[in-house]
C-alpha cells in the first residue's frame, strides 16, 4: 500500500545527542541542588530522550515564515524585566485588516443570511462562548465548528475565507485580528484554513498552537496525502463526509486543550510507580515485540505507564497526545475485544498510516495497551504480542502491583510538605515529561479548574512570548500568588497561597525541586527502553 509508513528516520526526528550516561550520573550524585542544565534536571532520563521534544523541522520553518511574512508586532508595556506585576500589559498585534472592515463584513454577512433561520448562532449563548474554533476548506466550505452547525455558519466562514484571500492577494498572510475584546487568529495550512475566535487571555502564539493541534488531529484521521489528493481533485469537496463520526475527537481535543496541562507544556505525565515495577513492565513490553512494531505504549487512563520504541524512532509528544485523545474519547469502543485502526502520526510522517492495535488489558481495567505497527496485515501477530506481554506480567506478579498503583490516587500536594504551595506543574525538558499533584479541593470545580489552567496558560505564554520571553515571573493576586521559572533544564509553575511572600515562594521552589529530585524515579520514566 503506497500510503504505508516506512520507518526511515528523518533528520528532524533525531532528538538531541544523548548525554553520556556517566556524566549524568556523576552530576546527579554530586549536585545537591537540581541541575538547571538540560539533561541534569530532576526527571531527566538517563538514556536518550523518549520523545522528540525539540521542535521538528516543520515547526522551525513555520516560525521563520511567520517572522518573514507577517508585520512586526508592536509590543507595549514593560519590556525586559524578569518580574511582572499582575497588571496585564496589552500586547497588540497590528493586522492587515482593520476592525472596521471586519465589522462591516460581519454586518453584510448577517444581512445576507437573515436572522430567522438557525437563530442559535445569533443567540447570546452562542456568542458568549469563550473560544470558537472553525475549520474550513480553501474554497470556503465549512468543515468544522466547535459550536453551532456548519451549515448555519457557511456565510460566516465565507467571510473568513474572504479575509484570508484578500490579504493573500497582496502577497501577505493574515495572522490575527483584535477587536472588541476578541482575538481572531488565522492558521492557513493548505488545503485547510483554521480560525480561532477567543475571549481568553491566551496569546496569539498559544492560539496558533491550539489550531495546529486541531489541524494535526484532522491529518491524523486522513493523512495529508489523502487530504491534498481530495482537494486537488475537487476543490469544493465537502470534507465533513470523511470526518463524519469523528467530530467528537476534535471536540474532545479542544476540551483537553482547555484543561490538560500536558498539551500546554508539550509534555506527558506518568503514572507514579516504583521504578522497579515500571522497569519490569517496560521489560515485559520490550520482550513482546514483533517485526513490524514501532511503538508500544501502555496507558493508565490519561497517564503514561511506559513507552517502548524501536531504536532510532522517536514519538513526538503531539502524536502521543493525539493517540491519548483517540483512546480516551472513544473509551467504550475498545473496552472489549481488540481495536485495529489506521492512524497517521502527523509529526512522524504526514504521508501514511500506521496501524494501531488498541486493547484494554482487562475490560474493566484502566490500563490500555497501544501497539503501533507499520503493517496493516499484522493484527494477529500484535494480538499475540499483547498476550505474551500479559502472561509475562502475570507470571512475575508485576500485574498486581501495577493494578494497585493504578487504583491509588496520584499524590496530593501535601505530600511535598510545603504549606504555602497549592499546586504546581513541573516539566523536565529533556525527557518531555511533566508531573503535577492532584488538583486541590478548592480548584476542583469545573470553573475553578479552568481558571487555574487559564492562569498557567497566561504564565506560559508570557514565558514563551515570541518577542519578549521572560525567565521568571512572580505575581501576587487576590486569590493566589503565582510563580513561574524557566531554565534550560525545566519549566516550573507554582500556585501559592496569596498570603505568602516572595521569599517564601523562592524557598518553596528550592524545597520543591529537592522533593522532585528525591521522588524522580517514581514520578518519571528514567530509563526508557527500545526493542
Amino acid at each position: 500500500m503506497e500510503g504505508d509508513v516506512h520507518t526511515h528516520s528523518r533528520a528532524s526526528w533525531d532528538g538531541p545527542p544523548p548525554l553520556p550516561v556517566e556524566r549524568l550520573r556523576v552530576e546527579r550524585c554530586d549536585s545537591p541542588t537540581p541541575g538547571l542544565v538540560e539533561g541534569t534536571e530532576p526527571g531527566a532520563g538517563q538514556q536518550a530522550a523518549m520523545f522528540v521534544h525539540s521542535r521538528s523541522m516543520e515547526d522551525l520553518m513555520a516560525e521563520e515564515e511567520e517572522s518573514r511574512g507577517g508585520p512586526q508586532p508592536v509590543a507595549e508595556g514593560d519590556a525586559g524585566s524578569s518580574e511582572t506585576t499582575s497588571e496585564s500589559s496589552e500586547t497588540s498585534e497590528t493586522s492587515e485588516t482593520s476592525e472596521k472592515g471586519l465589522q462591516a463584513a460581519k454586518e453584510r454577512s448577517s444581512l445576507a443570511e437573515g436572522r430567522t433561520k438557525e437563530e442559535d448562532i445569533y443567540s447570546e449563548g452562542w456568542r458568549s462562548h469563550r473560544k470558537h474554533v472553525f475549520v474550513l476548506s480553501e474554497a470556503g466550505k465549512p468543515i468544522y465548528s466547535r459550536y453551532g452547525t456548519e451549515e448555519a455558519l457557511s456565510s460566516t466562514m465565507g467571510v473568513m475565507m474572504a479575509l484570508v484571500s484578500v490579504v493573500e492577494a497582496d502577497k501577505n498572510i493574515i495572522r490575527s485580528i483584535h477587536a472588541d475584546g476578541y482575538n481572531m487568529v488565522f492558521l492557513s495550512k493548505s488545503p485547510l484554513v483554521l480560525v480561532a475566535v477567543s475571549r481568553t487571555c491566551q496569546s496569539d502564539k498559544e492560539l496558533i498552537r491550539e489550531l495546529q493541534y486541531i489541524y494535526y488531529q484532522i491529518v491524523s484521521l486522513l493523512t495529508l496525502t489523502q487530504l491534498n489528493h481530495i482537494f486537488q481533485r475537487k476543490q469544493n469537496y465537502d470534507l465533513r463526509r470523511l470526518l463524519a463520526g469523528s467530530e467528537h475527537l476534535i471536540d474532545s481535543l479542544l476540551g483537553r486543550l482547555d484543561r490538560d496541562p500536558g498539551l500546554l507544556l508539550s509534555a506527558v505525565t506518568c503514572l507514579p510507580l516504583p521504578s522497579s515495577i515500571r522497569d519490569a513492565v517496560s521489560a515485559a513490553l520490550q520482550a513482546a515485540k514483533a517485526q513490524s512494531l514501532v511503538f508500544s505504549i501502555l496507558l493508565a487512563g490519561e497517564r503514561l505507564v511506559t513507552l517502548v520504541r524501536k531504536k532510532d524512532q522517536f514519538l513526538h509528544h503531539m502524536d502521543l497526545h493525539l493517540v491519548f485523545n483517540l483512546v480516551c474519547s472513544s473509551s467504550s469502543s475498545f473496552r472489549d475485544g481488540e481495536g485495529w485502526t489506521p492512524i497517521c502520526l502527523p509529526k512522524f510522517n504526514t504521508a501514511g498510516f500506521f496501524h494501531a492495535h488498541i486493547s484494554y488489558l482487562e475490560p474493566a481495567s484502566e490500563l490500555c495497551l497501544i501497539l503501533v505497527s507499520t503493517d496493516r496485515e499484522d493484527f494477529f501477530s500484535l494480538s499475540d504480542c499483547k498476550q505474551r506481554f500479559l502472561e509475562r506480567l502475570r507470571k512475575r506478579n508485576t500485574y498486581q502491583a501495577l493494578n494497585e498503583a493504578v487504583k491509588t490516587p496520584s499524590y496530593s500536594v501535601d505530600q511535598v510538605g510545603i504549606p504555602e504551595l497549592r499546586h504546581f506543574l513541573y516539566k523536565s525538558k529533556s525527557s518531555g515529561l511533566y508531573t503535577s499533584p492532584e488538583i486541590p479541593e478548592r480548584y476542583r470545580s469545573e470553573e475553578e479548574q479552568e481558571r487555574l489552567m487559564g492562569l498557567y496558560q497566561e504564565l506560559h505564554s508570557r514565558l514563551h512570548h515570541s518577542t519578549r520571553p521572560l525567565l521568571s515571573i512572580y505575581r501576587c493576586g487576590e486569590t493566589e500568588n503565582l510563580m513561574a521559572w524557566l531554565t534550560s533544564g525545566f519549566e516550573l509553575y507554582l500556585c501559592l497561597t496569596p498570603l505568602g511572600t516572595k521569599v517564601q515562594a523562592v524557598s518553596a521552589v528550592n524545597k520543591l525541586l529537592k522533593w522532585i529530585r528525591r521522588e524522580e524515579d517514581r514520578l518519571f520514566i528514567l530509563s526508557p527502553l527500545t526493542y
Partner: protein
Amino acid sequence: MSAMRVDTKVVMLGKESVGKTSLVERYVHHRFLVGPYQNTIGAAFVAKPIHVGEKVVTLGIWDTAGSERYEAMSRIYYRGARAAVVCYDLTDSSSFQRARFWVKELQNCEEHCKIYLCGTKNDLVQADKSVRQIDFHDTQDFAEEIGAQHFETSSKTGNNVDELFQKVAEDFNDSVFQLIPPGEAGVDLGQKKDSYFYSCCHNN
C-alpha cells in the same frame, strides 16, 4: 484467549450508525448500551465460541467502522471472510442502498463469502409500523436473488440476534464438511505464518 483458535472469519458491514457494534455487543456480551452514539474507530475484533450440535465453532468477528473514511481500508477486514453480515437500518432507506453496495463489493471480491442481510432496529418498527422504510418482502426477494439469508433483528431486545449468528456458525459447519476435511480449517491466533488469514491475503 491466547491459544484460541478461530475457525471462521465473520465480518460486519454496513452504513454508519446502523448498529453493527450494538449487534455484536448484544451477541457477545448479551447487553445493549444506551447512551450517545459512538462510532467505531477502524475495526474491532472479538472471538466468540459457539455450540453447533456437538461441536464448538469459534467465530472471529470483525466489527468494522461504517464511516466512509475507512472504506478504502475495509478490504483488509472482509478479505478471506467466510460470512458477511451486511446490516441496514429498517428505518433508513439510504442504509439499504449502502447494503446493496456492500453486497456487490462482496460478490466481486469474495465469492466464497456467504452473505447474511440483517435489518436492524426491529424494535422501533414493532413499536411504530410507520417508521419502517424497508419492506420485508422486497428484501426477501433481494436476498433470494443474491442467495443470501435474511434476518430482521433488534439489539435492544435481543430479538433474532442469536439465531443470526447460530445460522452463520451452522452454515460454516456444514460447509466445512463439504469442502475441507475438519481440522484443517482453523486459524491459530498464536501462529504467525501459513494461517488462513494470511494465505487469503496473498492469493488476492
